[in-house]
């Protein structure tokens, strides 16, 4: 399957990360205790992140979005597939080279209180990467650079001497962003980076991420379960379900005219301030819950919960491809420009 880069606009600056056929997950003891069985939580994914742009990955728990993030940054070795980044295949790179490449590929985690070492000062947290990769910032310039980064993410230089527990959640997440930026990466993977924050603070961090992208031309792989947040920050969007991408395209196409039944259901289920108790009925309410990745359904993985499912869905795996002139790619046998996947009335 070829990797489609959605909505390749004229000003397109090329691709910074290209994931092809990626499979990753966990291993567990095999049957009767012999050997090990691989459970692919991510089961064959093709994605591309454009330079200086944001690819949003949205899905529910168990869809494999966190495993995808961890495989890309090297925390979980993939079972199969390639991760092309900066002209190298990260999946096949030896550890030493992989560590050198990691300069350009950083990550911001969900919870800053657990993902930053509480024993270190803010300045030490930010500067740690410079000790790992000498040559980015000379030793005598580090204090000044820490101060510059702190101001860049909206903190004061004197925050550098503090410890993390003295800061609020939003401030800690700013520190985590500064730590990632310190290595001057081309891509930052944000795994639920704003999910732990309160609404008012979340908006601050989302604005900060947008400002930093405009200023530094850094690309984001932005992973979240929150549709509104992904819609807001992303240029391109991939919707994941049970280890596969079911719909992939520009944010405007995917959110504006969703075609996969799952995307439709997800958007319909997302709470909105415009909902009211009287008007709640009428949305698509999916039955059941996500099956286990260890025993996925045959054919289309969504068919057990899909209102469109037929016998064909159990037999054939629908390919993720542009269908019938739709701008986005949809992995559904029934997707077409006539909107045949609309839910039953």
């Amino acid at each position, binding site marked *: 399957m070829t990797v489609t880069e959605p909505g390749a606009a004229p000003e397109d600056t090329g691709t910074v990360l290209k994931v092809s056929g990626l499979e990753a997950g966990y291993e567990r003891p095999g049957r009767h205790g012999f050997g090990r069985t691989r459970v692919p939580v991510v089961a064959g994914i093709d994605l591309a992140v454009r330079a200086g742009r944001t690819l949003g990955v949205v899905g529910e728990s168990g869809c494999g979005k966190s495993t995808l993030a961890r495989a890309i940054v090297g925390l979980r070795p993939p079972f199969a597939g390639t991760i092309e980044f900066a002209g190298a295949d990260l999946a096949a790179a030896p550890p030493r080279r992989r560590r050198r490449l990691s300069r350009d590929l950083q990550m911001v985690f969900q919870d800053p209180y657990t993902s930053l070492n509480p024993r270190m000062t803010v300045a030490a947290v930010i500067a740690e990467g410079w000790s790992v990769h000498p040559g980015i910032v000379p030793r005598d310039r580090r204090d000044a650079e820490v101060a510059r980064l702190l101001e860049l993410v909206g903190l004061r230089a004197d925050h550098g001497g503090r410890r993390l527990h003295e800061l609020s959640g939003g401030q800690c997440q700013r520190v985590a962003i500064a730590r990632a930026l310190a290595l001057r990466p081309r891509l930052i993977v944000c795994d639920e980076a704003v999910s732990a924050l309160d609404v008012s603070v979340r908006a601050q961090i989302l604005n900060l991420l947008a400002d930093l992208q405009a200023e530094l031309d850094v690309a984001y792989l932005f992973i979240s379960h929150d549709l509104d947040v992904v819609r*807001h920050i992303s240029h391109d969007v991939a919707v994941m379900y049970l280890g596969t991408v079911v719909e992939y395209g520009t944010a405007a196409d*995917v959110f*504006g005219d969703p075609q996969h039944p799952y995307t439709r259901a997800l958007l319909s*289920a997302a709470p*909105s301030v415009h909902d009211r108790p009287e008007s*709640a009925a009428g949305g698509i309410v*999916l039955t059941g819950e996500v099956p286990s990745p260890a025993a996925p359904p045959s054919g289309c993985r969504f068919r057990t919960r899909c209102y469109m499912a037929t016998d064909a869905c159990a037999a054939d795996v629908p390919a993720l491809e542009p269908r019938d002139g739709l701008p986005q790619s949809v992995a559904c046998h029934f997707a077409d420009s006539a909107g045949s996947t609309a839910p039953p009335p």
Partner: protein
Amino acid sequence: MTISAPHPAPAPPPGPAGEPAAELRDVHIGFRSGRHVTPVVRGISLALRRGRVLALVGESGSGKSLTSLALIGLLPPGAELTAGSVRLGGEDTGGFSARRWREARGGRVAMVFQDPMAALNPGFPVGWQIAEPFRRRLGLGRREARERAVALMREVGIADAPARFGDHPHEFSGGMRQRAVIAMALALEPAVLLADEPTTALDVTVQAQILDLLAQRQREDDLATLLVSHDLGVVARLAQDIAVMYAGRIVEQGPLDAVYTRPAHPYTLGLLEAMPEAADPGEGNSGGRLKPIPGVPPDPRRPPGGCAFHPRCPFATDLCRAEDPPLIEIGGGRATACHHSDQVLTEESA
């Protein structure tokens, strides 16, 4: 299963007349550390009426969870009711013994917690836990309790209930666990249901199912529900009334629709405008900027003088820095605690 069966339009809400099913009167809660008490909830009055859902909304640290725990007599260690009264069905619980509270819990007021895994005992079958109140409190026999529990499991949408009666919590999915917790809460037909972030731990599509279930039970059992949440979207699906909390006080209160359409407090306005939904009315990324509320909530140990929100408020004046505004009626069943609510109201409609 889809619970969105067609239902008749909700009955007209009972007027404010009549005794509320549960009520807080000027409740203050503080954390004690030695002789010093840090006030966390500072004078909250609420009334829950049967057939209505009241949403209690606020960010972490606003005191909303403590407020709901006070209604069921389960304040955490260290927290204490320093003033005010908690009333259940018109009865002051001030003199309740531990035994009286135990009787009230389940029978008169029940609670659904955020984490269903923590609310269930992992060592016992789920059905057994649902049946327990029937045996212990109603004194039913084993067989009868089991029948009642299975019927209840069906009512909350647990498919194949008789077969799942003996399953342990870890054999249930997250959504099914929360259904079981709701069944346990409703077992003794309480008048008041407290739901503290009941869907926060769940996925979006499962959340929709659980919200539908809560709405259905609410209608059919004529419950008085308090829905505690940080999510303005979730409460919009369920609640007719809303109370917005900030730094331990209610800053705005009233019918949800009116409050959302024309907020009268700058904090409510800020929360609504900070939602990505507000910045992207259309589809996709409009490139618009969000409007966050600047700053962070105050530390309850060092509250700012005057109105607690003034350091973050675009409307703040010297009056706000000096004087904490009381919660006053502004008509239409609404109340707000802001010196400049007139200005805020026009701001939104502009």
